[in-house]
Structure formats: C-alpha cells, structure tokens
C-alpha cells in the first residue's frame, strides 16, 4: 500500500507547497449554521488534524473540500485558484481523495467493484470501455491484505463485511487513489488496534510521499502521533489552531474535551484492580449523579 502511495503520488508535489486553502469559509444547512469563518491550509507533506466534539462541523468542513457540499460564504482555493467544486468528481480530478464518515460504500456491490468505483481500470476511455476485471480483483485483494483484512472472497458484497472491514475498503480505496490530498473522516473509528496502526502508518507514508493529509479523529493519541498541525472546531468555529510542538498531547486532550475530562474520568472511575469486592459501588453511583 505504501508502494501504492509512492506510485500514485503526484511527482510534482513540493513539500510545504499549499494545496488547499480556506479563508473565512462558512456553511449553513437551511436554518442550521454548521460552520462559520474557518481558515485552514492543507500543505504538501503535512498532516493537519481536525478535532472537535460531536456536531462541531468537522464532516461539514471536509465535505466542502471534497466537493460534496458547497460553502455558503468565504473562499476555497486549490493550488492557489479560487474554486467552488460542482461535484466530488472535480475534487477527485484535482487529486483530492476522501474517506467519508457516512458515505463509505455501496452495500450491494462486490468488494472489488466498490474499491474501484468511479476510478475503474479500463482498456479504453469511454464509459462503455471494458474493465480490466482480473487486475481490479487482484489489486483490491492485495490492498486489503496489506491492511490486514483478508476477505473471504473479493466478489462478496460489501454488505456482508463487518463494520470495520467495510471501513477498510473505503480507506484502502482513498489511499490508493489519492494523488495530492488525502482526507480521512474518522477512519479509525470502527477499527481495531491493529488496523488503526495500519491506517496511521498510511497517513505517515502519505505525508512522506509529499501528500497533504486532512485527518479527522476523536482520538487525541492518534492525532498526536501523526499530526503536524492541529485545528479544533467548536460549534462550527475554530477554537484552536496550533502547529505541532506548540501543543502537547495533554493540552490537546484537554482542549478537545473542553476540560480535563478523560483524566478526571480516569480518576472518577478508578477502582481496585481486584474485582467484585467493590464496597463503594452504589455510593459512588449516586455521587456522580448530576
């Protein structure tokens, strides 16, 4: 897969070159203002982590970059040119590949078809061109194996895969086809430790191949492992915008949760390692009612 990354990466990428720039971008869904006044720069060879509470607007933000939604205010520049993507196809044509949180796969289609959907390998150029089916099957299987996913049969419909396996199909696809910018919306949410590790390695590899990466996650550990730049959204606005080194893991965690939540929780839930002999059980139970 890392081979694939290096193979598919745009050769013309220069580290540090700005690929996508957002200035004052906002988005409303009817009466709901999901985003306002966001500034963001995706730079070649860097990972930008977008963090935030549920409903903060992270998915909305990346959907604007990937062409799925139009922003309702502000400017979106790609390679220095102001654009408004009419469709995800246009974003893809700019080498921007995305793993969506909720638009992952077509359940009734075979795994390999899902993998290549929209970017089929064909012998000709026209829609009616024949697909190189054998090759597509082989590649899809191989790329999934690299993530530690061995599907029973590459021809089985995606609907028969487990939640995490499905997510892996979407990730493997984006990594395989992302040439300049890779956007990942909570890719590791459904994944086990092993698969998460693989994804984090991909992120690192993509960065090293010179791609710009936007990485959305709720896991501050994951974010801190690979991020170069951290943006925290809160109710649609930027709450923190810092480069790596300006912020420690603990600060990040604290900022994300709007307080030292996890540490506190850890303390709160702390209990003897031997089990069944808890004597504070119900007392504590009522204590943290609020």
């Amino acid at each position, binding site marked *: 897969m890392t081979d694939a990354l290096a193979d598919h990466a745009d050769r013309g990428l220069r580290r540090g070159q700005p690929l996508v720039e957002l200035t004052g971008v906002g988005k409303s869904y009817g009466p709901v203002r999901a985003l306002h006044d966001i500034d963001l720069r995706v730079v070649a060879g860097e990972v930008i982590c977008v963090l935030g509470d549920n409903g903060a607007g992270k998915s909305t933000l990346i959907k604007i970059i990937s062409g799925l939604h139009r922003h309702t205010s502000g400017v979106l520049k790609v390679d220095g040119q102001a654009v408004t993507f009419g469709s995800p196809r246009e974003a893809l044509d700019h080498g921007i590949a995305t793993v969506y949180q909720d638009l992952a796969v*077509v359940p*009734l289609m075979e795994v390999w078809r899902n993998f290549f*959907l929209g970017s089929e390998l064909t012998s000709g150029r026209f*829609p009616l061109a024949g*697909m190189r089916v054998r090759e597509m099957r082989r590649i899809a299987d191989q790329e999934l194996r690299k993530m530690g996913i061995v599907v*029973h049969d590459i021809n089985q419909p995606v*609907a*028969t895969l487990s939640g995490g396996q499905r997510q892996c199909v979407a990730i493997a696809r984006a990594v395989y086809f992302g040439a300049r910018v890779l956007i990942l919306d909570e890719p590791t949410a459904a994944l086990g430790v092993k698969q998460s590790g693989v994804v984090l390695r991909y992120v690192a590899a993509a960065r090293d191949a010179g791609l710009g990466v936007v990485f959305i996650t709720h896991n501050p550990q994951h974010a801190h492992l690979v991020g170069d730049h951290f943006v925290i959204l809160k109710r649609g606005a930027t709450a923190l915008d810092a480069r790596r080194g300006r912020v420690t893991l603990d600060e990040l965690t604290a900022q994300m949760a709007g307080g030292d939540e996890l540490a506190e929780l850890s303390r709160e839930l702390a209990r003897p390692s031997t089990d069944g002999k808890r004597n504070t059980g119900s007392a504590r139970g009522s204590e943290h009612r609020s």
Partner: protein
Amino acid sequence: MRRAIRLLARPESGALTAAVVIFVFFLLVAPSFRSAASFLTVLYQSSTIGIVAVGVGLLMIGGEFDLSAGVITTSAGLVNSMFCWYFGVDLWVGAVLSLVFCLAVGFLNGWLVMRTGIPSFLVTLGTFFVLQGANLGVTKLVTGSVSSRDITAIDGFGPLRKIFASSFTVGSATVWITVLWWALFVALAAWTLQRARLGNWIYAVGGAAASARAVGVPVVRTTIGLFMTVSFLGWFVGMHTLYRFNTLQAGNGVGNEFLYIIAAVVGGTLLTGGFGNAFGVAIGAFIFGMTSLGIVYAGWDPNWFRAFLGVMLLLAVLVNAYVKRLSSSPAFPSGAASASPPASPAPDSSTLVPPSSSAVPMAIERER
C-alpha cells in the same frame, strides 16, 4: 459437479429454474405447445416485451422507473408514420426523426428527475399521460381518425421492414428478427453491467446514489443515459410494430410499461435499485410471454385467464426465491453466497442496505 453448483449459484439461476419448470409444465399439459413453431411464437412474443424490458431493467437497477416506456413505442411509430405520410417524405427520414424524438423524451424524463428531485415514478407518469394524450390528439388532427394510415407504399418501406420486422423460416417455424435483436440487446446489456465501467456506475447509482456521487460517479449523466436507453429501445419496438402492422392504433401500447417492470422484477431485479441482471430480465420476459401464450396453448377457459397468469407468476417467483435460498445455504461451497446478495447476507447491515427494499429486510424475517 462443482461447476454445476457454481452455475446454480449465479443470480439468474433462480429465474432460469422457474422458467424451466413452467416450460416443462406446459410441455406436459399442452400438446400443441410441443413444437418448434410454438416455441418460436413464444420467443417472438417475449422479444416484443423483452427488448424494452432490458432497458427498463437497467433503469431499475439504476434506481428509477419509467412509466412512459409502453406508450412511447406507439409514439415512436406514429411520429414516423404520420410525418412521412403527411409530408410524403421517405420513411428513413421519419425513422430518424422518430428516434430523435424518443431520445429527447428520454432525456427530458431523466433531466426532470435529476433537476427537480421529483421521483421518477411521477415524472414519467406525467410523460406517460402527455404522450398518451398527444398520440390520440395528434393522430386525430393529422389523419382525421384514431389510427395512422397505411405506409406500405411510401419509399423506404422495404428495407426498413427488413431491419425491424422481417422473418425467416427454419423448418416449419418462423423466426422473427426481433428475437435476434433481443438476444443482441440482452448480450450488450449483460456485458455492460458485468464488464463495462458504465455497468459499475449503474449498480452504484441504484445502490447508493449519494455514495456513488461522493466517489466521483457521474450520477446525473448515468441516469439520463439510462432513461435514453429505455426510450431508444421503446423506439426500436415501435419501429417493429409499425413495419410489421403498417398502421398503428393511437391508443395502443398503454399498459405495457407494467409488463416491462414485471419482467424485470420476476427476473430478479430489485425494485429499489442496485441489484439485478440482464439475463434475469430476459428470462423474466420469457416467463411472462410463455405463461400468457401457454395458457392459450393449453386451451384453458379464457374467463380464468388472468387467474392462471397470476398463479403462474407467483409460482415462478416462488421457485426463484427458493432456488436462490438453496444456492446460498451452508451446503454449498464458498463463493456461492456472494452471488445472491439480497437473498440472505444482507440482514445485519440494513442501515447500509436499502432499508425499505422489500426483498432485503424480509430476509431477516425469514431467519426467524
């Protein structure tokens, strides 16, 4: 043996088995069904439904309906026949004009569906009514009656009839050219679905349009293209009817749109889109054609015709469902299950699977 099992696991195997069962049944009960001539008559009848049904099947896999598919066959013929008759021009001109007209209707259907977000059921219902009305109104206006005039004497009739409505005899049986055309269209559609990039797009658009769009599939173009395919095939059948019967009744064609849908669904196409198969649709059309003629060959009481038809249809569908379930049962080796998604594997992923599809959630119920 393994080969046989593999074969049984193909998605159209259910429909095929049903077709064979019904075929054998009629062979047993209807002596006059047992001739090559009868078989070819059935094939011909199936082809006139089946040609358009292929397009309708593709469209349904792509998640849309076309209720104007029946009446457009008549519009196609009328445009050709009346234009040429009124202006006295060569029939070739009219045929091309009619093709352009049909493609425009298909485009309009698709464009309206995509542009306004109104369900295709309603948009094409509108087109259906408009075409039906226009067929009658315009014909009356042009010819002064409700049927088009005889066009046998107009230039170009001979070659056009060769293309659209000729037949040749093999032994004592007549083979109509539409049967060959049908085979061609089915093969083309099957190839497209299985092997062409466009096929991938059709499945994706019907299975999850938003996801498809998100990975760069040109949803709008694909859908409009499907509508135009249907109206192209409608035009084709319209040409056949015109050049076979020379005149056309302006009120004809109505009701056939449902036969196309029936053929597609009997052949295993998911009503909610995203799953189906061109061979299945062809077999569906064949089952319908065979049943409706088989009842006649068997000489059953015509008053009960519809009742027989209904029972046969249910039978076909039941056999289909049964074979599908068999083919994905544990007794079969791996790989088998993959062939028939909606039959069983979907249960625990229903938020990802079309939730309102009748076929899919019910698989769950069956488990109980």
